[in-house]
């Protein structure tokens, strides 16, 4: 995990800054005593600044002439009142000397260019980009981007990492807990309650080790472009990303024993691409191949059950520890994300002939994954069970029906556009899209599975190679009513054909009208409205069971539920935005965006999902020395969904229904100001405020089960207030000094996070801190240009 050791501890940055400042002063002083030279230089510059086409520019001397603009050296001091990971979610806010920015450019003979860009040097959110080449002829780009992602600080866990993918609890702790539970079970099974278990765990949790959850993505990219501005160009690309760290993972031993773990992350993702492109004045062809490989260096996680030092099984062990059972495995086994590979071939073409244009593209992606399969469980107590009249051992891979996953998916994308213009004002475009996901994975039949590593369930399951084909065909008519006024109509039909899902076929008719105009210089309008009507074929509620069980069980989902991604739907989308320019200095933007969906044929499941956003922005820029903007947005989201609570079979009693009405409002405000308020002085200020207020209204008719429903008023209510400011003083043309600061206040009130602790009924949690914080940063820096 992250440490603070990467920050600059030595004051060499400060010393370098002071030396550079002295040098900048000396340089500026020299220039003020040589006005004539300066004037000559300006004249020379003017000559040289004429566009390249005019006449042969004086060739730079061999080698490179370098220019730094800017080099920023500084020091920051931060303070935060909690150890919430949100403060540093995607950034490094540690104290110390910093080089926030370095930009070095070089020019050499033969139009060679070099550009080096470094941000947040040597910090955990650093980025370095190097460009070298002759633009348009050959261009080499190297990029290294470090992206931190912190999920939570100061979590606590009983486990100790003893190897890659191995989390252990000291045997004496497991033995003590198992013994105490067994003693209680022997005397009074009903006494194994949350309070009882909490009392047992508390001493150990009090001394549990702390853990921070987070990732670091280190991305490297190398690109070589050859002949980019010529008729035939080539591009080569290599990329590699190393991801290390951990994130929370739900590794449950049963309904009453969920164990949240730090999933170890050690990923390598490697890609390479070769592409060629041929362009003429009237057409072009582009083609290429991309290779991508993902490797998970820790693909198996084995962790100890806090309540068992020895494995045990019984028919109710998946409910342990509780009044029904205290069995279960001593270790859990999880197969983490498997390594995989993808090979992509792509081809694109375009042409224009007369008043027509045609675009087409095709892509064929072959995704494969063939990781070895793990055994059903490591719970040795399940060995030797009687299964179908024979002794069966689920702890060995020899008894699996297949030894590797052998999964393959091939996707085919074909797209075509054909368009033409009629005269000066009408155009018509036909579009077709075809996307096929062919799942070539074998149907592997498993005779059963081990539930929560605790109980062998002799229920035959079979893997399901879900697949689909999506096609879109449509036409779009545009009418240029005036020079800057356009009316558009379009119709599109989207059709899906799915395999193994509840709905095999669905069709959606999508109508759209757009109107864009700028009738006068001081006003512009962009607007669109789209209506989609999706109809569906028969809904087979048993599809899931039929596909994934060797002997299909009766459907367990509600027959009248329609899964929203397949369901019949009416959708209204709109955008309207107006921009007003009452003068050269003022502008005003007003806009609204909406996406409203209704699922009228769905008796259960998602019924309605409405999103409406209203935006306004005002800006004032009377000159180069001052500008100001104010931005505001309100987003309203309303979601309705329905369900029915059931026991062992789907309920038919309407009194068991329950309904959720989700209402979210998010207000976002932003303002910014830049002012050269005095000679040599510049002020930059910005502030952002975002506040979300969510409620879940729950209702259930009395008399059923549930009988009452109580909603939440803290459906992820979040506030973030952020203020940034800086003042710069221009010392001379080569240097400036700045003072800057940042202040942030973050608060979250989330229903699912309320009252969290390390142990709650049925769950041992990491309980890391990603909650409220109030943080500030102050700093000074020197900026040099030379």
């Amino acid at each position, binding site marked *: 995990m992250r440490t603070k050791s990467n920050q600059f501890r030595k004051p060499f940055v400060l010393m370098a800054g002071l030396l550079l400042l002295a040098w900048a002063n000396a340089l500026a002083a020299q220039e003020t005593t040589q006005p004539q030279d300066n004037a000559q230089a300006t004249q020379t*510059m*003017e000559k040289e*600044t*004429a*566009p*390249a*086409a005019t006449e042969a520019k004086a060739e730079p001397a061999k080698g490179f002439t370098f220019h730094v603009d800017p080099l920023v050296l500084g020091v920051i001091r931060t303070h935060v009142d909690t150890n919430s990971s949100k403060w540093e979610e*995607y950034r490094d806010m540690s104290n110390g000397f910093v080089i926030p920015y370095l930009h070095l450019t070089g020019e050499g003979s*033969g139009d060679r260019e070099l550009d080096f860009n470094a941000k947040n040097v040597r910090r955990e*959110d650093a980025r370095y980009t190097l460009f070298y080449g002759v633009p*348009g002829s050959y261009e080499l780009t190297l990029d290294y981007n470090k992206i931190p992602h912190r999920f939570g600080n100061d979590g606590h866990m009983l486990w100790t990492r003893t190897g890659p993918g191995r989390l252990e609890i000291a045997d004496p702790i497991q033995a003590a807990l198992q013994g105490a539970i067994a003693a209680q079970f022997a005397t009074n099974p009903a006494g194994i309650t*949350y309070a009882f278990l909490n009392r047992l765990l508390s001493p150990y949790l009090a001394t549990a080790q702390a853990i921070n959850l987070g990732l670091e993505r280190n991305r490297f990219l190398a690109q070589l472009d050859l002949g980019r501005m010529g008729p035939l*160009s080539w591009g080569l690309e290599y990329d590699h990303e190393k991801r290390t760290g951990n994130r929370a993972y*739900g590794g449950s031993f049963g309904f009453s024993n*969920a164990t*949240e773990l730090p999933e170890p992350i050690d990923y390598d993702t490697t890609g390479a691409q070769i592409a060629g492109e*041929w362009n003429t004045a009237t057409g*072009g062809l582009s083609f290429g191949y991309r290779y991508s490989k993902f490797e998970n260096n820790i693909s198996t996680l084995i962790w100890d059950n806090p309540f068992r030092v020895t494995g045990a099984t019984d028919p109710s062990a998946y409910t342990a520890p509780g009044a029904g059972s205290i069995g279960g495995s001593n270790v859990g086994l999880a*197969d983490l994300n498997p390594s*995989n590979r993808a090979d992509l071939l792509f081809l*694109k*073409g*375009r*042409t224009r002939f007369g008043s027509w244009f*045609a675009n087409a593209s*095709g892509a064929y992606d072959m995704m494969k*994954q063939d990781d070895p399969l793990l055994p059903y469980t490591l719970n040795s107590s399940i060995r030797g069970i009687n299964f179908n009249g024979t002794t069966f051992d689920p702890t060995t891979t020899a008894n699996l029906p297949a030894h590797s996953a052998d999964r393959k998916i091939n996707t085919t*994308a074909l*797209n*075509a556009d054909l*368009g033409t213009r009629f005269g000066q004002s009408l155009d018509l475009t036909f579009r077709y899209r075809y996307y096929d996901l062919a799942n070539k*994975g074998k149907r592997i039949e498993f005779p059963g*599975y081990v539930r*929560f590593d605790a109980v062998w369930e002799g229920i035959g399951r079979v893997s399901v190679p879900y697949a689909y*084909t999506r*096609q879109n065909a449509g036409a779009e008519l545009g009418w240029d009513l005036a020079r*800057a006024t*356009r009316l558009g109509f379009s119709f599109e039909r989207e059709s*899906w054909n799915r395999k193994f899902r509840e709905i095999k*076929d669905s069709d959606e008719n999508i109508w759209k009208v757009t109107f*864009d105009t700028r009738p006068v210089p001081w006003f512009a309008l962009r607007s669109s409205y789209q209506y989609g009507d999706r109809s569906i074929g028969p809904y087979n509620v048993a599809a899931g069971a039929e596909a994934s069980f060797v002997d299909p069980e009766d459907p367990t989902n509600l027959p009248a539920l329609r*899964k929203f991604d397949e369901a019949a739907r009416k959708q209204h989308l709109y955008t309207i935005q107006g921009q007003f320019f009452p003068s050269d200095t003022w502008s005003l933007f007003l806009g609204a965006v909406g996406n409203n969906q209704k699922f009228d044929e769905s008796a259960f*499941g*998602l019924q309605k999902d409405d999103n409406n956003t209203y935006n306004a922005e005002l800006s004032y820029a009377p000159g180069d020395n001052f500008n100001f903007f104010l931005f505001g947005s309100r987003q309203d989201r309303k979601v309705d*969904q329905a369900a029915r609570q059931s026991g*062992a079979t789907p309920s038919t009693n309407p009194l068991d229904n329950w309904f959720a009405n*989700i209402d979210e409002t998010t207000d976002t405000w932003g303002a910014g100001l830049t002012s050269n308020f005095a000679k040599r002085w510049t002020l930059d200020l910005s502030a952002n405020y975002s506040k*979300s207020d969510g409620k879940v209204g*729950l209702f*259930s008719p009395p008399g059923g089960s549930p009988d009452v429903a*109580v909603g*939440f008023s803290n459906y992820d209510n*979040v506030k*973030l207030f952020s203020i940034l400011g800086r003042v710069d003083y221009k010392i001379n043309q080569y240097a400036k000094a700045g003072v800057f600061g940042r202040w942030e206040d973050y608060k979250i009130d989330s*229903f699912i996070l*309320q*009252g969290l602790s390390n142990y709650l*009924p*049925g*769950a041992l949690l990491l309980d890391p801190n990603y909650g409220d914080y109030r943080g500030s940063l102050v700093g000074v820096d020197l900026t040099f240009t030379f």
Partner: protein
Amino acid sequence: MRSLRLPIPLLGLAALLALPGLAAAAQASPPPASPPSQSVLGFVGSDVCATCHTDVAEHLTATPHGKGKFASLSAHGCETCHGPGSAHVNNPDDPALRPRIDRLSPREQTAVCQKCHTGGQQFFWHGSVHETRGLSCESCHSIHAFKSEKAQLKAASTVEACLSCHKDVRADMWKNSHHPIREGKISCTDCHNPHGTQTRSLIKAASVNEQCYTCHAEKRGPFLWEHAPVRESCLNCHTPHGSNHQKLQKTATPYLCQQCHSNTRHPGTLYDATTLADQSRASNRIFNRACLDCHAAVHGSNNPSTPYLGH
């Protein structure tokens, strides 16, 4: 037969393969783009332009249009884009003779740029949504007065350029869960190509999922146990630009899962405030990560014992 059953894929492929031939044949036809000003008085050369437009010329030298490659590709310097300037030079006070590109229609403005910029990212500009909605290169880029470090944008950065119209995304970026866009670690153009693609929302990959896999390759699988809606679109559950809920979820769990899973026993059970009010009786199906506390492998699993995508 509800779905389209035409052999259009084959036709599309045939058309694709025929494009180079069409392109070659079309070479014989006259070039579509022509300089905006068609003065018969001819070209004057960039030196003449620079005598008055000193600041513009100075600014241009630091850009690709002021360098050797541009010179090798263009015959007339400034007038390559602006057209012959002699009429303006002879009568500089007549505003009608000023060869201003911003007076042209968006299509005409774009045609000027596309005399050179037809390939690469601009390959599919024709027919793209930004073109058909009346935008031009000048809507986002400026040759002479740009503010960005790269791509000569009118805005200070790619993100700011996109947000100048897509204001709703600006608000999303400030939400609790977001991609590191406002932190500057990724940009809109990592996923979208604003110059045109043949996929919806101008995403660069062939599908939403294939776009997401470029960063989230661990979700690519394919898996032994698949979750069908996950395989179809990540956007069934996630919203990419920002969410108030964890992991860019459209709706918080457990309600997100219960929009599809109202099965017997625990999936269809109501989890309300009473199941959280008393800590000693709270349900592990609603607190923390709710369903995901056990069903951790919602994106797919390879473990023979996890057909329910959880351990």
